[in-house]
């Protein structure tokens, strides 16, 4: 046979030296496990057997550990608009109870998982609140009704429609009432109108759980319009808040926070900011952010308003007030007058007379038509207390044939819920559209559950011409039906609601394309912003003043009801995220309680101090007012008036409302009362006595003072103007180490970050502490809910918390909020102590966690000076291999609830450490998008969840190596005087800087300030 030689190349043919070399080294690079030493080892066979034995044994052991199997089912037919792994955004709106927040809803694989603000809206500019951020979880609430019921039994929609139609027909002309909370949707109202028209004599009653009826009535009396004006905080250089928590719960806080924040942004080149006075009974979020704050009893709210009117030149006599408050009124009036036309007074009172006096003040200071826009009023609240009272008495008189409840829950939150429930029994036909078996729905025969807003079609009109739309982001999860569909069906209109709405808008907009665009944008606004306009003030000031003066004086102890920022009026109470969000002021979770001052607490032998800090148990008080009584634990809240008890509404829900809300706290609405025109949310005569019992309240922060440590830096505007560097003068000490503290203060090598270097800046001046960031982070990063007991053990998991510190007078302290999250230190103390290298630094400056590698020694958390690391103390997510050890107090692991999880972020198993990641999944996404487009990433493309949620834009984030980025400018150009790093002197080199807080108040002499610090340290 011929011996042919085949060659692949000339090199082989000639067998060159280079070729021989290549043949010898088939693998040009060394394989990691086949190093020279191993291949040439003297006993490779034995080693081989050893490895074989070890790997077989290891594999056997590993294989015998059963890990939970979760099935992922791929699409059989892929929907056109869904690409797995790519998020879709749909515009929507949050309009629950009249709050107005245009939204963008992020959906992944057809599931809504995150809510963002819609930046196209000029009203909110993309702001969100904690409640709106949490609303996505309510979609997956396991306590939602899953089908229509009749008398508590499951039924079909056909059957329900048949029976309701029969019942409606059998009313014999008796009127039907649609009882709803504030509805912003004009088309829904039209549908309600159609329904009511079918049953003559019927009416629509709007009822708000926390009523603004007094304000509406006062505006009717003052301006002839029963409206809530538009408030333009961005134009107000003096803001006086008379118990109106406009940053936390009043009307539409996200909008106002945005406006107010615009006047609080300040730098050394332009050292001007608004001045904010607060007069209030309890410590609200707004009061906590004021420059001057005064406390009064709730029964004195009218007197304070009168005194202010007198001081700004109104023709009323000022009542006598506590000298401190009187001094404050004088100061506020002076500032209001000085800023006439750029000033605003807002009041949280639901009393017509008080609101009328406030209108008179605003008229006197030129707010009418500058900061108060009556030409473009808002629809935020429409409830009418008188109509509601009439409805309840009509019901009790048997004059109402049918009641259709739509988003209202008076059996829980009406001041006389028992009477409402009694009346409901006399109503022949009772229908509820509510999404769960709440206190009212429980009493209704027919339950026709409405969709969640993320499953529905709707529109909303905040102000004339300003619309926002709602479209489904997911198919209805359950056999629910849009309330509008139900109403239309019962009105005999066979048009489905979606067509009804579309027809309406196509007609209005003049074409289907315009409608599609409107849905895509989410909002429709006038092309040019309508001019701000006032209205002639015609209120009867003298009459109102007389009524206020003759009002009953309060007793020794008074009670005031308030809404918590997260829970609000209680509508979203069954939301574990919101329940676990620490209250901005009290830092408590999962409860309501009797807030009292330290002075009052001392009468119950309790006071702030070590004992109070280290024990969870709080003395329980029995509180009696208006003939009702409630037992609640006391909680000391510095800044509350010493003769006032404050209780949050929204708690004490029935067990059927859901596992998170059911049975938590007590219902405080029972202490509200009706004064003939409006509901009062305070009680002037109250007694409270200790029962001897104790009750645990879970706080996330127990120490109130920052002990004068330079972790928080603040100064006054006057001092800042005088010497902008003064607030940061201690930073000069770092110069002792050399010119560049970063490089010169260490023996070790300095790592450069040549590419991207992420950085964040947090402005303490515009962080109002509302907590939207906390919930946004929780939603974005699948942060676990742990429940009250575990929060009590300080096991909460939040990646971003808002530290709240008090300083100064214990009964009227100054407050500062400091968002605290992983500082992504470039010289991170956590990184070098991890024995397994589970936490390390990226070349973009991110301190990252390898969860799979973490063994949970907690050394990193101990060594973190900022205490931002969170261990998974228990199995919150069912993510370990142990059976029956799941710790889940709020159904967070139900297959339904788990749909809210962000698939880009892994859930953490028990025993591993976690913490803020700078939303690394978002940063990667932004980088990849830019890369695919073949361009550098632009500033603002990568946003963290906390940054995006913040209504006040207090958080700025970006690439500090990019000289055009906002973060670079803040650090190097705009805010060099205010910028500092927390615990900078420890040379941790944080990636997050803070901007010092500036209070717009008179400078105190330095000695006095130091004395105050000492005092505060003593009290804390």
């Amino acid at each position, binding site marked *: 046979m011929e011996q042919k030689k085949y060659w692949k190349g000339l090199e082989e043919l000639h067998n060159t030296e280079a070729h021989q070399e290549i043949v010898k080294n088939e693998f040009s690079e060394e394989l990691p496990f086949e190093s020279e030493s191993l291949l040439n080892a003297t006993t490779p066979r034995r080693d081989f057997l050893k490895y074989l034995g070890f790997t077989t044994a290891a594999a056997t052991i590993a294989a015998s550990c059963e890990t939970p199997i979760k099935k992922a089912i791929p699409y059989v037919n892929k929907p056109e608009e869904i690409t797995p792994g790519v998020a879709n955004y749909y515009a929507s709106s949050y309009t629950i109870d009249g709050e107005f927040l245009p939204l963008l809803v992020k959906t992944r694989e057809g599931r809504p998982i995150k809510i963002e603000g819609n930046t196209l809206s000029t009203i909110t500019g993309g702001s969100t609140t904690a409640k709106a951020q949490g609303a996505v979880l309510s979609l997956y609430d396991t306590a939602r009704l899953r089908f229509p019921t009749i008398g508590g039994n499951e039924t079909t929609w056909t059957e329900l429609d048949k029976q309701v139609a029969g019942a409606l027909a059998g009313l014999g002309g008796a009127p039907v009432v649609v009882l709803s909370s504030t509805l912003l949707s004009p088309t829904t109202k039209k549908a309600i109108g159609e329904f009511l028209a079918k049953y003559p004599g019927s009416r629509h009653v709007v009822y708000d759980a926390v009523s603004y009826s007094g304000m509406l009535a006062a505006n009717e009396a003052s301006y002839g319009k029963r409206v809530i004006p538009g408030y333009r905080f961005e134009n107000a250089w003096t803001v006086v808040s008379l118990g109106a928590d406009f940053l936390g719960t009043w009307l539409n806080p996200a909008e106002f926070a945005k406006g107010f924040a615009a006047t609080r942004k300040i730098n050394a080149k332009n050292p001007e900011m608004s001045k904010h006075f607060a007069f209030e009974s309890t410590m609200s979020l707004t009061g906590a952010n004021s420059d001057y704050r005064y406390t009064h009893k709730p029964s004195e709210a009218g007197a304070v308003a009168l005194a202010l009117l007198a001081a700004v030149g109104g023709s009323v006599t000022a009542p006598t007030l506590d000298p401190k408050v009187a001094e404050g009124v004088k100061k506020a009036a002076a500032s209001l007058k000085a800023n006439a036309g750029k000033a605003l007074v807002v009041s949280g009172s639901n009393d017509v007379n008080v609101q009328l006096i406030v209108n008179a003040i605003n008229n006197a200071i030129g707010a009418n038509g500058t900061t108060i826009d009556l030409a473009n009023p808002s629809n935020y609240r429409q409830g009418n207390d008188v109509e509601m009272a009439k409805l309840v008495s009509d019901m009790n008189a048997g004059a109402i044939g049918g009641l259709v409840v739509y988003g209202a829950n008076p059996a829980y939150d009406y001041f006389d819920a028992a009477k409402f429930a009694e009346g409901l029994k006399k109503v022949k036909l009772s229908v509820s559209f509510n999404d769960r078996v709440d206190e009212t729905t429980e009493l209704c025969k027919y339950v026709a559950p409405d969709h969640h807003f993320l499953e529905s079609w709707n529109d909303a009109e905040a102000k004339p011409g300003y619309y926002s739309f709602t479209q489904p982001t997911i198919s209805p999860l359950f056999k629910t039906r849009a309330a509008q569909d139900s109403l239309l069906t019962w009105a005999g209109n066979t048009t489905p609601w979606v067509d009804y709405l579309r027809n309406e808008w196509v007609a209005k907009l003049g074409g289907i394309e315009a409608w599609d665009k409107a849905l895509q944008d989410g909002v429709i606004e006038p092309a040019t912003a309508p001019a701000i306009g006032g209205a002639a003030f015609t209120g009867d000031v003298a009459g109102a003043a007389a009524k206020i003066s003759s009002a009953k004086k309060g007793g020794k102890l008074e009670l005031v009801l308030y809404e918590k920022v997260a829970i609000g009026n209680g509508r979203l109470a069954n939301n574990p995220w919101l329940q676990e969000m620490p209250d901005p002021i009290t830092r408590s979770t999962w409860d309501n309680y009797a807030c009292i001052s330290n002075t009052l607490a001392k009468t119950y032998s309790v006071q702030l101090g070590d004992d109070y800090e280290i024990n969870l148990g709080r003395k329980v008080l029995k509180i009696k007012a208006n003939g009702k009584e409630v037992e609640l634990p006391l909680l000391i809240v510095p800044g509350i008036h010493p003769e006032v008890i404050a209780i949050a509404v929204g708690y004490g829900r029935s067990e059927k409302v859901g596992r998170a809300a059911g049975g938590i706290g007590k219902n405080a609405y029972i202490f509200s009362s009706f004064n003939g025109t409006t509901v009062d949310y305070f009680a002037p005569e109250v007694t409270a006595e200790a029962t001897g019992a104790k009750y645990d309240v879970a706080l996330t*922060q127990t120490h109130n003072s920052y002990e004068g440590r330079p972790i928080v830096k603040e100064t006054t505007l006057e001092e800042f103007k005088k010497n902008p560097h003064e607030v940061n003068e201690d930073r000069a000490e770092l110069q002792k180490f050399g010119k560049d503290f970063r490089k010169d203060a260490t023996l070790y090598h300095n790592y450069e970050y040549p590419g991207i270097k992420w950085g964040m800046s947090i402005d303490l001046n515009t962080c109002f502490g509302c907590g939207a960031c906390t919930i946004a982070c929780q939603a974005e990063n699948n942060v676990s809910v742990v429940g009250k007991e575990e929060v009590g*053990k*300080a*096991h909460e998991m939040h990646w971003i918390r808002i530290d709240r510190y008090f300083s100064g007078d214990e009964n009227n302290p100054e407050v500062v909020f400091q968002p605290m999250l992983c500082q992504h230190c470039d010289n991170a103390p956590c990184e070098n*102590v991890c024995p397994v290298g589970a936490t390390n630094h990226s070349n973009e400056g991110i301190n990252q966690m390898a969860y799979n590698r973490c063994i949970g020694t*907690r050394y990193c958390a101990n060594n973190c000076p900022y205490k931002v690391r969170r261990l998974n103390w228990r199995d919150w997510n069912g993510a370990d291999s142990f059976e029956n050890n799941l710790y889940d107090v709020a159904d967070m692991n139900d297959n339904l609830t788990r749909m809210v999880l962000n698939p880009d972020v892994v859930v953490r198993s028990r025993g591993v450490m976690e913490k803020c990641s700078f939303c690394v999944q978002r940063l990667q996404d932004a980088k990849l998008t830019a890369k695919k487009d073949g361009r550098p990433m632009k500033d603002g493309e990568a946003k963290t969840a906390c940054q995006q949620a913040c209504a006040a834009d207090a958080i700025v984030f970006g690439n500090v190596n990019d000289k055009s980025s906002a973060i670079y400018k803040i650090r190097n150009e705009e805010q060099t005087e205010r910028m500092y790093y927390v615990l900078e002197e420890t040379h941790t080199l944080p990636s997050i800087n803070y901007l010092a807080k500036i209070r717009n108040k008179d400078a105190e002499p330095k000695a006095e300030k130091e004395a105050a610090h000492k005092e505060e340290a003593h009290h804390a």
Partner: protein
Amino acid sequence: MHLKYESTLREPLVDGVKDYHQVTEDIISPIEAKPGKLWYVGFFISLALLGFGAFSVFWQIYFGVGVWNLNKTIGWGWDITNFVWWVGIGHAGTLISAILLLFRQGWRTGVNRAAEAMTIFAVMCAGQFPIIHMGRVWMAFFILPYPNTRGPVWVNFNSPLLWDVFAISTYFTVSLLFWYSGLIPDFATIRDRAKTKLRKHLYGIASFGWTGSTKHWQRHESLSLVLAGLSTPLVLSVHTIVSFDFATSVIPGWHTTIFPPYFVAGAIFSGFAMVNTLLIITRKILKLEEYITIGHMEAMNKVIVLTGSVVGCAYLTELFMAWYGANPYEFDTFFKYRAAGPLGWSYWIMMTCNVITPQVFWFRKMRRNVTVTFVMSIIVNIGMWFERFVIICTSLYRDYLPSSWSYYRPSWPEVGFYMGTFGLFFTCFFLFAKYFPVIAVAEIKSVLKTSGENYKEKMEVYEEESAEKFAHDVAHAH
């Protein structure tokens, strides 16, 4: 045979009239007899404690570290306190066996066996804590640097916790070898005396074919010296490295350069106290008062008062530095939240037990009083437990940011775990006392004829001799 002449002024190391056979009888016969009632009671109490500890650990591993009362601020509590405490106790054994051997301290022979056993058991107990305290204990093997398929992912050699792994495992290995090599001749003695087949067989295996030949003895002696040389630096290094867990951190109260010597002194302090506790019980129960004499206890009490004072100095130095260093965070930690504040009581327990009460040992009468020594040994160990608690918890609970300040009380599984290690320790110790010679028979024999009471008495003849004659005899000895 020692050619050493020891003055009768020196206290005998073995009391009573003994010869080699009597020594063997005294020490070995308890192993051959049935244990007494007290032994059973003690053993079963220990087993019960061990069982409860195992249950507590199971509970924690099953439901998570969250069943402990540690939290976001205080990541270490009883777990690491107990770890450091047990490691500290483990120091006395090596110190006695290694350093005292090198210094030719004859008195160590009476106590070294039990002290070394204590070391081994204490380190076994200590080792439980850093392992079980992990959030994912089933991944504990991640801390071992071994070639793996994960990248390969390596351990972090910067972490003091990793240094601990090496320090403790080395220490344990060397201590075990040292202890066991000393046991071999004694095991052979038991084997040779054995009257049952099983005993003969088991001790035969344990004694590795020891015949007592000169070559065996020569090798044994060299091995002892080598191991003593190896373990001497370990005595200093182990607790130094443990102290690095704290000293290299940034937490005020931890970040302290004085820690290494301070920890080592504290470890010896607590170790000697524990040796005293155990030996007072052992000599009583096993009737070994003639081998573990008052003189032994006095020697150890001297070490206790010395190291206790060193530790006291360290406490004062810390306070001074907290003031002198002018770091406001450190100042607050020491003066506001350690010496005062909600956990201040623990600081004052520590101060009382470790610094004030040991000063009674300046008095000879107290040093030689068995009751005082026993009570003091307990007090010192309580004090040293609190020292670790104070260092760990009072530094963590109120550190930089007041918003995160917290408080700490142990939960039942934490207490149970600690009790469990007592169970483990005493279970081992009871087994040791029953099956192992608690005193090194061979070593006692080696000092018997120079330092035994009845031999010393014979020396009195020589004591009365004139120095010239003694010198002459020595010079002309054949």
